[in-house]
């Protein structure tokens, strides 16, 4: 991705991610996941714009370039991801942990399909699974309204 002139970037290694985000999960739980998801959406939108993403097949190369995942397979409303950075960093866990990646995927999927979607992780390598499994579903009007009502 091309860096903007006035934008600053910080490179997070797996170790720093594990300590920082792991601690945040301990303290904030779901809220941390939500914040990471939103952060992922921002990142995903930037990536979709920068890479001029048009088809689902391009999602893999975009994620690889950003070192967020190694292999991505999109099958309609299921996305299978191997080598998720977040999942690797937050091993072991009882719950799925790739919220940031889910946000990125939601933004990329929305950019390709033109639909407002929510991506939820059902299986995660942090839980000891072979790959991360994400389910994509369209947002219902009341879910959108609920999120809007939280802000206004």
């Amino acid at each position, binding site marked *: 991705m091309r860096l903007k002139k006035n934008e600053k970037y910080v490179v997070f290694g797996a170790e720093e991610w594990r300590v920082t985000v792991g601690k945040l999960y301990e303290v904030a739980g779901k809220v941390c996941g939500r914040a990471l998801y*939103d*952060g992922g*959406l*921002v990142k995903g*939108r930037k990536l979709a714009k920068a890479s001029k993403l048009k088809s689902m097949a391009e999602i893999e190369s975009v994620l690889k370039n950003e070192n967020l995942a190694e292999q991505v397979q999109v099958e309609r409303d299921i996305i299978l991801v191997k080598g998720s950075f977040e999942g690797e960093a937050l091993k072991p866990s009882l719950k799925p942990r790739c919220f940031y990646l889910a*946000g990125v995927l939601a933004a990329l999927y929305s950019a390709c399909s033109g*639909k*407002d979607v929510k991506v939820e992780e059902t299986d995660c390598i942090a839980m000891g699974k072979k790959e991360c499994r994400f389910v994509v579903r*369209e947002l219902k*009007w*009341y879910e*959108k*309204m*609920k*999120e*809007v*009502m939280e*802000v*206004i």
Partner: protein
Amino acid sequence: MLKDVIMLGSVALLLYMGWQVEKRKRATHKSILTKLSMFYFALGISILMYYIRDFYVANEALDLLFYRIGAMFQGLSFLLIFLFSIDIFYSESRFKMPAYILAFLIFVMFSIGMWTFHLEREMQVFYLDKKYEVTRVFFPIEIEKIIITLIGIFASTLPTLSFVIYGLRDKNSRKKAFLYATGMVVMFAGSMLCYLISPLLARSLYLVGAIICYYAFKMR
């Protein structure tokens, strides 16, 4: 003095809410929230223009200029809140594009009419300062009143409904959603009554509507 407080109070509240929504906007549903914040801004600016025009009652050209700018922004606010509810309800539906096109067409026609048609100033009832207000003459006045009322109802129904239906569905946010719906109805009713009866009603109802929305906005 009372009129100044009422109008400037409404402007301040609307601009503040617009600014706050803009500030709180997150990654999710950015475009929907942008429309809502722009709605507050546009409505606030339109009331500000109506306030400014009161200083130029003696100068017909300036009076009409500020009136036209105010009406344009008011039309824009109607358009934005309508698109806001379309984005909530029909974002994936095939009705979205026709609804967008229809709303834009109405707005463009309204704007063109506002700047090209003849405007007549006449004394309005109930107005405290006994100043002149404007009557548009796009069509014969009776037909015009019906058309403008229908546009008002068309633009206001969906946004109000979106809050009401959501309020019925979600117990936790019911009060907040109903307050928003009430605030919207009061503000839309103000616009309509301004046109049909007297600007005095609009001036007061805008403030009431803005206060209700502000109260809802402050609820967590």
